[in-house]
């Protein structure tokens, strides 16, 4: 497929995504991309912009709108993450993010199935091609806990990988490449230490209500039941800031207004999905470079 056909397909996917959320009563928002403070994340390096930062995700502004009483909202926007460049990464990429009140992460998993069913219908495409494989998109998808995925695919169990600080290594090498080949895989229940902004499970404080979506080994989305406890959230952000300092980086200021507004955050769930990767999936493109108009190298 040539560049022009790929850009037509990209536009068609984006238009179908918008229709899906409009039909499900979501408000489309466009919030500022340059912000005075971000959520500190241990392994995401923001781009500075005249003393402020380019967003690494739109979550601060979107959660503040959710706290202000908008029950369902979505956004398609640019995000910036320094040094992230590979066949599946661009330092400037397009994110689809959506939030829903009175919902938890299992509702979002189901909504992912519905979104893909809608896109499959709109694209007239029941399966996608990833490398040598074909993956059918029909629901129900596979739901696998992180612990189950490790016992199935990894050389050591999850607890041991965590204790040795080898989660990412083992995940990248043994687990991720094998997820979502028969049907899309919803990998859920991350160790509490990897909860980020997710609430812990009430019936099992060892795991966070967080999930990721994989199709043919490609990570597409990350969703949470949102943590609404501001003290707990502050403690986690401080821990992330400490990790950032151990890397010799200086974390930005704490997002105080976000933490204040967290008191009004309803029971809710949110998810971020890489839109460029979604287009890769529906076009069978092997490299993210193929599905964007320009890459940094071509500017």
């Amino acid at each position, binding site marked *: 497929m040539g560049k022009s056909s790929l850009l037509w397909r990209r536009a068609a996917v984006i238009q179908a995504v918008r229709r899906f959320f409009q039909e499900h009563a979501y408000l489309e928002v466009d919030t500022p991309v340059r912000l005075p403070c971000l959520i500190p994340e241990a392994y995401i390096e923001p781009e500075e912009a005249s003393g402020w930062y380019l967003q690494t995700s739109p979550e601060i502004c979107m959660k503040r709108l959710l706290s202000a009483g908008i029950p369902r909202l979505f956004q398609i926007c640019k995000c910036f993450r320094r040094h992230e460049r590979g066949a599946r990464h661009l330092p400037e990429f397009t994110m689809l993010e959506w939030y829903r009140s009175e919902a938890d992460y299992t509702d979002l998993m189901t909504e992912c199935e519905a979104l893909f069913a809608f896109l499959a219908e709109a694209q007239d495409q029941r399966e996608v091609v990833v490398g040598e494989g074909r993956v059918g998109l029909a629901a129900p998808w596979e739901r696998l806990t992180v612990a189950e995925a490790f016992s199935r695919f990894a050389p050591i169990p999850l607890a041991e990988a965590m204790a040795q600080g080898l989660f*990412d290594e083992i995940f*990248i090498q043994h687990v991720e490449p094998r997820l979502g080949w028969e049907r899309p895989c919803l990998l859920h229940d991350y160790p509490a230490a990897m909860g980020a902004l997710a609430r812990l499970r009430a019936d099992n404080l060892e795991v966070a209500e967080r999930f990721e979506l994989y199709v043919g080994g490609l990570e597409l989305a990350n969703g949470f039941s949102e943590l609404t406890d501001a003290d707990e959230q502050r403690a986690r952000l401080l821990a992330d800031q400490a990790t950032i300092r151990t890397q010799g980086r200086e974390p930005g200021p704490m997002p105080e207004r976000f933490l204040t507004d967290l008191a009004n955050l309803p029971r809710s769930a949110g998810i971020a999905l890489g839109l460029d990767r979604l287009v890769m999936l529906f076009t069978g493109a092997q490299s993210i470079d193929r599905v964007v108009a320009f890459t940094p190298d071509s500017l």
Partner: protein
Amino acid sequence: MYNASDLRKGLKIMIDGDPYIINEFEFNKPGKGQAHYRCKMRNLTTGNSAERTYRSGDKFEPAPLEERTMQFLYSQGSEFHFMDTKDFEQIVLDAGHLGDNAHFLVDNMEVEVLFFKGQPMDVTLPIFVNLTVTQADPWAKGDTSGTDTKPVTVETGYILQVPPFVSEGDRIQIDTRTGTYVTRVK
């Protein structure tokens, strides 16, 4: 000192006391996890290949290589002969040390020869080289079968994909970093 985020194809770094060049490079990172850099590398001293994965935070010493501008004279079997144009000193590099660079060497071409502790290890080529096409299938005008490239052989024996209008005897420019066609030259 290099950081993991400086790693890229062609970078030369020291590992366990030996100079290595990175031949292939793959970036991977779970959305919220640590970045990993999988590198396929060649030990410049032994010519052996190795594969290693690094993560953000890892640091590397640049390989202390000395560069000398030399002229490529000729190849004989797997031996490639070069000469320093100032003092006329000649050196020999074997194909194992040159790797893919051997595809782009033509007689009298000026290159940078890399020395480690006085021993020649590899060459740095110009980014673009012009080579003559020695074998190409003719382009059937009006062929709209959909293929937009065809394979040709250049004077060094290297085979690459080019647009269909390139014919035997043409000079073409090749990007030595990727080994791909750039343009036809007069």
